């Protein structure tokens, strides 16, 4: 197999791989919300909207949840 063929196959596989990664990430973002203890990423907007020192954090770093 010459170099042009190898480049061709590498191109196709890289393209397929990156498309899968992209859609897997989108799937992950949506699926995470549906899990019982998952994250709704849309709530993260509140980090900017409620950003006074006295506001409750969206997720408190020091709040250890009991299992």
């Amino acid at each position: 197999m010459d170099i042009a063929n190898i480049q061709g196959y590498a191109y196709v596989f890289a393209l397929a791989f990156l498309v899968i990664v992209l859609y897997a990430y989108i799937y992950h973002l949506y699926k995470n919300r549906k899990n019982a203890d998952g994250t709704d990423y849309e709530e993260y907007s509140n980090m900017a909207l409620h950003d006074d020192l006295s506001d409750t954090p969206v997720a408190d770093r020091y709040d250890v949840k009991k299992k």
Partner: protein
Amino acid sequence: MENRPLEYDYTVAKWFMWSTIILGIVGMSVGVFIAFELAFPSLNTVLGEGLSEYTAFGRLRPLHTDAVAFGFTVSGIFATWYYVGQRVLKVSMAESKFLMTLGKLHFILYILGVAAAVITLLMGYTTSKEYAEFEWPVDIAIVVVWVMWGVSIFGLIGIRREKSLYISVWYYIATFLGVAMLYLFNNMEIPTYFASGGHGDIMHSVSAYAGTNDALVQWWYGHNAVAFVFTVPIIAMIYYFLPKESGQAIYSYKLSLLSFWGLMFVYLWAGGHHLLFSTVPDWVQTMGSVFSIVLILPSWGSAINMLLTLKGEWQQVASSPLVKFLLLASTFYMFSTLEGPVQAVKSVNAIAHFTDWIPGHVHDGTLGWVGFMIIASIFHMAPRIYKREIYSKSLMTAQFWTQTLGIVFYFTSMWIAGITQGMMWRAHDEYGNLAYSFMDTVAVIHPYMILRGIGGTLFLIGVFMWAYNIYKTMSARPVEESELHSATPMGA
């Protein structure tokens, strides 16, 4: 005193806010001067023959680009970081003596670095690499300043209360890491004085790379300096200031995450478009073109996300000049991230390269997107830093329209001049003889050079209006904390 509630400490943000304004005035004044110098070369001796060395285009052009990129813009990035960082991480700099001292030291060393850069550039010390002109001692100072900022970022993240990092923080981190990597690799240089055992000028250095390799590294750096100074940190600003000012949640936070990773992956491969039709391998040129086109997707992902954040709240665009700045910044971002990829297409580049269309493109990005976004950010921050309303809403509105008109003058004149140049350089008769000399093109584009200078002047007048408005805000009507929650209070 002991029982006073904890507050955010904006001392360092305030200092950087003022360096943003002052360096903006310096950099843009130089820009306006050299714009007119191109139209009227006699300006070269405006201060007399003896000082013409310091007013020459070649001496002042790097001072303009570096002052607006590394002075105005980088100061704006630092100012907003020291403001936004505390707020979205819900931690005050007053809680850490170390971070407070480091922040202040960061500012002082930054100003010393800026002074060294300005003086050495005016003295004529340059590596001759675009946007990387600083000689090696200044480079070392810049690395120290940058590392201090990195410690500030990660130090603040280390003591945060908010568990997750807001999207803007991701963009600030990417700015820090991206510029660190680019700056270090492109500025690998050998000081010739030491390498030669004491010969020549101590300031002089040569690049560690040679020929085509040097060009490749330079434009990998040059294009990504646009990415990590003019794009990534400015997106960090809009993702905070637009939702906050309008009181609206980001239209799709998930889209902001997807666009972030898309931008990070794609941007780094696009630099090859600066070297189309040059000696670099053909596949590198093609890759640069292709990745530039793909870059439209993550760029528009962020920009559309911002426009949609105003969904149902479009009356704010009419009523608030601050929202006008934010909206137009986002629109100019869409505009220039479409124009750039179009210029990166090989057949278009064959006409556009080396013409005035390129600075036209750069300026609708830097004036419309970067400039407006930094101006808007400081208009939002200043009332919260001083706990006062903005001095004058009508002055702000007048500034918006003056500057918008200035930008339109700038890019339309450069479009016409650039495409005219490109077409005239290519024109030939049936025997292949060039139809026009270089001077023919200069004569034709002269009116557009003047229009460009007028456009720049209008933008600069707006910058003075901005500076005056912020200066007067320091003594404007005091406001309660509750008035500062979302829309910025403004005086008549």
